[in-house]
């Protein structure tokens, strides 16, 4: 059964090749067969190994663990695998009967799924680099797939920034190989106690984290994300924002686990990096007018919230961040797909030109409202759970609590701004009979509601974490939420709607490619000073 993890990588890649080679229109049903097979395999695999993760290790060709290529799974990677399968199911259904679902598109989509599943399961640092670089290449092609000037520009910006970031990660891997003589994550993790204080190990940590920061769009180096996710096709944007950007965060978890023996005390530093990401993302998001740019900047800010949780050495806080990854994947995919339906019907990307969506498309509007309630952290929806875990765990620090509250107000402001699209009279739009995208929206919306209400059995069954201290029907929870909404409404009505000059300046601020790279180099320098020179 242990070889099922290999099949999870091979099946999508092989399906992609078959789809590309056979020029028959029926071949696109093959994706669903492959997807079904992978889901069944993943479930069987989970049932077999759910209490003995150590036996999932496979080393190819019976080489020594230190030099061989190996795969391993645990509950974190399995939960990411289920999230990947679910997201790809929904995106494949969403694009099923549209014109964009041609063979080339499906080829890259299925290939990306295989590569991403490989990234989740790999057990050595060099394969992490290979899979990261392959995701970069495939995502670039998918961004450029719209074949407009905007998308080519975003794609070239994306690939150059990310390729240099991933190469910095590779330098870190090389230093680790020089110190330990192996690139296996587990072997290094056991050996790191003895040499944890060495300067070269600290420098390797800095370089790896810098590369991961570029891939997961942390504070100073996030400028590629709104460009790339804002111009791609909606289905692609949903996949990138919901799932692929989480690859970087998954790497963050893995590398931090590997370095856990070295006592680097990175928690505080990455908490403030996450806080800065969240605040800056929200500031940019409230000033935007393009619906996809708003959502893309909110991805940045939600990644900041995730980092505020993930960076903590305390397990409860960490679990809040981990849960927020899944919640964000569900509601952000939902919002992007819904925005795609609305953009297609209204033929505009600007929030101010969309009015009367509720009367024109009631079903889509309800799903969008579910997504908006989730992202603003309303009780009964999934965003509430993970935000509350993070909120409880940073309660003793006033500054940290205020940062989180400020980010919540900003999120509420920009989604009050976005909810204006629902009001207004019915608009005659292009009548598109597209039942499949409604199914995909419904899938994500149901997942949001289910995770928001049945979080106790789900997290107990999957991670063995007791969450009963979080109660949804709590006066304080509703009170906090409505205070944030009220302040958000006031800010929207008196500041954002007037479109003052500072807001315009934030909206029109476009960092150049050179400055993005300069900031990246400065980020590496600051991290080196913090982690290498000061201790």
């Amino acid at each position, binding site marked *: 059964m242990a070889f099922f993890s290999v099949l999870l990588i091979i099946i999508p890649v092989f399906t992609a090749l078959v789809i590309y080679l056979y020029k028959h229109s029926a071949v696109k049903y093959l994706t669903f067969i492959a997807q079904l097979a992978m889901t069944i395999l993943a479930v069987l695999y989970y049932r077999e190994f759910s209490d003995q993760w150590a036996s999932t290790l496979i080393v190819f060709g019976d080489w020594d663990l230190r*030099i061989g290529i190996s795969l391993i799974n645990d509950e974190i990677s399995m939960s990411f695998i289920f999230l990947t399968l679910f997201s790809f199911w929904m995106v494949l259904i969403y694009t099923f009967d549209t014109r964009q679902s041609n063979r080339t598109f499906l080829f890259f989509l299925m290939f990306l799924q295989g590569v991403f599943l490989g990234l989740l399961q790999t057990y050595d640092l*060099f394969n992490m*680099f*290979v899979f990261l*670089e*392959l995701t*970069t*290449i495939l995502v*670039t*092609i998918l961004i*450029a797939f719209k*074949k*407009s*000037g*905007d*998308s*080519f*520009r975003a*794609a*070239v*910006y994306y*690939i*150059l920034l990310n*390729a*240099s970031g991933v*190469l910095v990660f*590779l*330098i870190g891997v*090389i230093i680790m*190989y*020089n110190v330990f003589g192996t*690139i296996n994550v587990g072997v290094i993790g056991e050996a790191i106690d003895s040499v944890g204080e060495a300067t070269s190990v600290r420098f390797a940590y800095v370089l790896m984290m810098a590369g991961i920061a570029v891939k997961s769009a942390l504070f100073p180096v996030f400028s590629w994300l709104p460009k790339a996710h804002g111009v791609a096709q909606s289905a692609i944007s949903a996949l990138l924002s919901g799932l692929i950007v989480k690859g970087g965060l998954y790497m963050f978890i893995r590398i931090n686990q590997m370095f856990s023996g070295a006592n680097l005390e990175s928690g505080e530093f990455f908490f403030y990096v996450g806080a800065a990401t969240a605040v800056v993302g929200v500031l940019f998001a409230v000033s935007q007018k393009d619906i996809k740019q708003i959502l893309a900047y909110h991805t940045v800010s939600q990644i900041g919230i995730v980092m505020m949780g993930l960076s903590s050495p305390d397990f409860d806080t960490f679990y809040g961040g981990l849960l927020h990854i899944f919640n964000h994947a569900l509601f952000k995919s939902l919002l992007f797909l819904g925005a795609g339906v609305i953009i297609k019907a209204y033929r505009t990307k600007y929030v101010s030109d969309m009015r009367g969506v509720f009367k024109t498309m009631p079903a889509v509007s309800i799903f969008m409202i579910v997504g908006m309630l989730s992202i603003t952290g309303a009780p009964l929806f999934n965003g509430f759970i993970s935000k509350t875990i993070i909120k409880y765990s940073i309660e003793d620090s006033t500054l940290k609590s205020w940062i989180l509250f400020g980010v919540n107000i900003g999120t509420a402001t920009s989604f009050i701004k976005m909810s204006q699209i629902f009001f207004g009279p019915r608009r005659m739009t292009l009548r598109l009979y597209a039942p499949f995208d409604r199914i995909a929206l419904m899938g994500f919306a149901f997942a949001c509601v289910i995770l928001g209400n049945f979080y106790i059995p789900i997290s107990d069954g999957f991670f063995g974490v007791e969450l009963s201290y979080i109660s949804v029907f709590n006066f304080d929870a509703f009170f906090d939420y409505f205070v944030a909404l009220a302040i958000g409404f006031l800010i929207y009505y008196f500041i954002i709607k007037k479109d003052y000059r500072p807001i315009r300046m934030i909206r029109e601020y*476009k960092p*150049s*490619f*050179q400055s993005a*790279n*300069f900031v990246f*180099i400065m980020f590496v320098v600051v991290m080196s000073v913090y982690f290498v020179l000061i201790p």
Partner: protein
Amino acid sequence: MDPLLTFIVILIGFYGLATSTNIIKSVFCVTIIESGVILLFLNMGNLDGGRIPVDIIPDTLIADPLPQALMITTIVIGSTVTSLSLMLCIKVFHHFGSVEWVDVLGMERGR
């Protein structure tokens, strides 16, 4: 070769990324960084005076085969990145009429 030299090559690449105003020059800067990284790793495999790792004689210096195996993969991936970004440069030139970052990023909407 001194590892310090390869670090200098990598830093030259980053200096170029932070200063060059042309997309094609930026592509070459990424290639330069990658060459530096490959040289850095190959350096660690005892290339100077090390025997090839077949037909092992005891008590002799042997070149480490793993860096070479890994760097071949890196070269392949790097060539893919370079060719893909150069292809995108051509497309960007068709749409914007320029490959200067200022012209390309400064335009409000692409055609």
